[in-house]
């Protein structure tokens, strides 16, 4: 059953295309001209309102590691999609796609997360077609 919910969630969410945050200033905080795609190990998940945050250790080309912070949709929105607090845990190796913060910090929006089993879920607010 859990697998079915996860599969449904994945199928439904991949269909959503473009990111937006309906609370925080997505357009102001994140630069839609700077998409990012990173792979790394989850170090912390903040399952909190108004947006979840998750942190990922990403290895740089020079061998150093940067801890990136990604913000997603509120917990309730994700739960209604079948994405629960336990869906992502510290230690999980994931791929995250999003948009880099305008302020140059190591933050980005967390729009899509791909798990090692290939499951890709949409973790931002439900999308709209970018115009």
């Amino acid at each position, binding site marked *: 059953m859990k697998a079915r919910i996860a599969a449904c969630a994945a199928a439904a969410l991949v269909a959503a295309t473009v990111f937006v945050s*309906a609370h925080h200033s997505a357009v*102001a905080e994140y630069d839609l001209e700077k998409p990012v795609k990173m792979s790394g190990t989850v170090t912390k998940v903040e399952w909190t*309102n108004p947006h979840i945050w998750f942190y990922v250790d990403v290895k740089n080309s020079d061998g150093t590691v940067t801890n990136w912070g990604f913000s997603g949709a509120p917990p309730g929105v994700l739960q209604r999609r079948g994405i629960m607090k336990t869906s992502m845990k510290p230690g999980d190796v994931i791929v995250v796609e999003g948009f880099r913060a305008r302020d140059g910090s190591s933050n980005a929006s967390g729009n899509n997360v791909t798990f090692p089993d290939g499951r890709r879920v949409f973790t931002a*607010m439900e999308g709209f077609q970018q115009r």
Partner: protein
Amino acid sequence: MKLRIAAALLTVTTLSILSLSAQGQLPRMPDGNPDLSGMWDNPKPASGPPRGPATVFDKSLFPPFKPGGEALFYEPRTGDARHDEPRAFCMPSGFPSAFLGPYPIQFVQNQKYLVMVGEFMRVTRIIPLDGRPHQADIEPTFYGDPVGRWEGDTLVIDTANFKRWSLDDYYYTDSKEYRMHSDAFHTIERLRRTDMNTIAYDFTVDDPKIFTRPWTEKWQLKLHPEWEKTGLYEMVCEENNRCPGGNCRK
């Protein structure tokens, strides 16, 4: 015993549904007025393509501006969250903006009141249905003073006494400016349940300091009974406010 009760309940429910379907009737309160209770999705245009992540007012419907109205309506961004987007540090969205985002809205109704609870920040409107006038001499607020009355099967909600604040989620569709209503903002909502799963929701904006005349959006609300199981999720902005006082932290 439990099984028997469950079976009886199921039978009653099924019969009720069949009865509704057969007679084309909609849920009603004991006084005969429509019962709008339920879990509804946020308002969306009744026709045409989606206009954004949340519902935003359709620019093409706007009447001409009054002199100076455009400057009052479009607010250029400055880069300072305290000016540009007070919601970024958990200030209220106000009405109607808080009810336009992609979050469920639960309607709870009795014969005296309709209560609208939005999941977004758990914002609540308590709307008296007895046709009373607006309160006099009250301080303007983010959510205004709503009063309701029935015109046949249509619920008419008139809301006034607003302070100047964000109109809608236009902020998220434009990186240079956003839209604000004036302190003369006044709204008229007309809600009519057209079938079990739909409320036709006509939303009239009357802002005489900005526009030469009111205009009306044709929206609709769709019922989501499947959301009843979990109900509205809690959403407390301060739980992880990244921008306390407008100072966003990394």
